[in-house]
């Protein structure tokens, strides 16, 4: 008698457990499905970002200070500093050289029909990285500028070295940036010398795949890849990377081209957000 009652009690407990668990899971799944697939932040997400953002900024500053202290003063005191300076100088010269080449190529191609306007940079905004995506599968950053500063979804994010990515979503004071190397990112690009156009897609590591380049097109290894200005997101002529590998498989119409990014994504600290989404050569 006692045993059967105990057994029945155990059964009813089990049923209650599964009922409770099932109800809760269903309720939560309904909640999640209602927002699944969306990339725009809802009010709770924005609130979360706004609350945690200041903590991230503070910890990030402390981390950068500690990291910077270690790098600059403890490990290789003078050599590292000199190396950093030389690299910066080299970068400046490289950038100047690319800009010069791009200007010359544009002039020749248009046969001086158009006068290349002195392209004033559009309004820009400097931002600092306050947090990085901890996941192995996504490549995003959190920056300390948001919609109250005029940052909007889709705005290009660059550094002196080249394209970094674009703004994915923003809250009043913080924004999330999708890196160009994320597999969900795609940028209209062209090669500088041979003017071949294609789409650079992130490979999830420090490389891009240059898509839709026909086998008949001539692309050279080591050639610079720049934004083409098509698509209206990135201004024309921004450095994306250099062609590092070209493979022509027997099947298919297109070449398999890999591009090495111009930006060292592991060393990013300060970024520039281009507030105008149109080409530098357009009015």
């Amino acid at each position, binding site marked *: 008698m006692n045993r059967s009652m105990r057994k029945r009690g155990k059964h009813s407990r089990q049923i209650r457990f599964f009922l*409770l668990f099932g109800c809760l899971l269903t309720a939560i799944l309904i909640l999640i499905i209602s927002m699944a697939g969306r990339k725009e932040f809802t009010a709770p*997400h924005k609130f*979360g970002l706004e609350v*945690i953002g200041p903590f991230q900024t503070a910890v990030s500053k402390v981390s950068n200070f500690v*990291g910077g202290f270690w790098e600059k003063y403890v490990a290789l005191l003078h050599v590292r500093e000199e190396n950093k300076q030389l690299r910066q100088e080299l970068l400046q010269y490289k950038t100047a050289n690319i800009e010069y080449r791009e200007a010359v190529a544009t002039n020749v191609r248009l046969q001086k029909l158009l006068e290349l306007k002195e392209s004033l940079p559009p309004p820009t905004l400097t931002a600092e990285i306050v947090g990085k995506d*901890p996941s*192995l*599968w996504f490549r995003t950053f959190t920056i300390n500028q948001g919609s109250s500063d005029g940052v909007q979804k889709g705005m290009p994010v660059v550094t002196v070295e080249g394209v970094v990515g674009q703004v994915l979503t923003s809250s009043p004071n913080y924004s999330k940036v999708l890196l160009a190397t*994320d597999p969900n990112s795609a940028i209209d690009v062209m090669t500088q010398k041979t003017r071949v156009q294609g789409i650079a897609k992130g*490979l999830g590591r420090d490389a891009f795949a240059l898509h839709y380049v026909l086998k008949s097109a001539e692309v050279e290894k080591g050639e610079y890849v720049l934004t083409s200005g098509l698509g209206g997101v990135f201004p024309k002529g921004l450095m994306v990377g250099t062609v590092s590998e070209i493979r022509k498989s027997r099947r298919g119409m297109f070449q398999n081209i890999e591009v090495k990014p111009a930006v060292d994504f592991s060393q990013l600290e300060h970024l520039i957000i281009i507030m105008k989404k149109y080409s530098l050569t357009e009015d």
Partner: protein
Amino acid sequence: MFILIFLILGILILVLQTTFLQLLPAWLGNPDILFLLIVYISCQADILRGLVVILLLGLLMDVFSGLFLGLYPVIYLLVFAFIKGISRRVAINEFAYQVPLAVVSYLFVSIGMFLFSLSLAPDIPPQWSWGTIILQLLMLAVIGGPVFGIFDSIMNFYRSLSATGRLPGTKSANRFK
């Protein structure tokens, strides 16, 4: 109070993970301490409180990682359901089981994320790097013990507070009172 304590702990870990721990060299991996917290909560908390904390942490993780909202709550809830399911047969709330459980769960989650990424961009299949995954698993196995120890001491602190009745709104465990 349990929800508040573990939510604050989760936020602190998330902040550390997105800032300070990013300074670690690449060869050392990027330890997912928040995932260990999810496993710990799944092992130790009751269903209702566990679900609330895990859902909130998933929503917060969505803000700082990935592109698609709702991905992390789903993943964390699946981990929670998986661990709760196992806990009905094995006494996994014992310390010795938690580290292997965290490692196995992380492997499943990585496989799930890989398949999800694959379905999003079939033309650019994500790279499954055994080296990186094994490094992460090793990292979790190494830091799992001490981290669970810290979580245990926080849990004991919470229980002692509850037991002494110093927390407003906490009920006595004695049902026959």
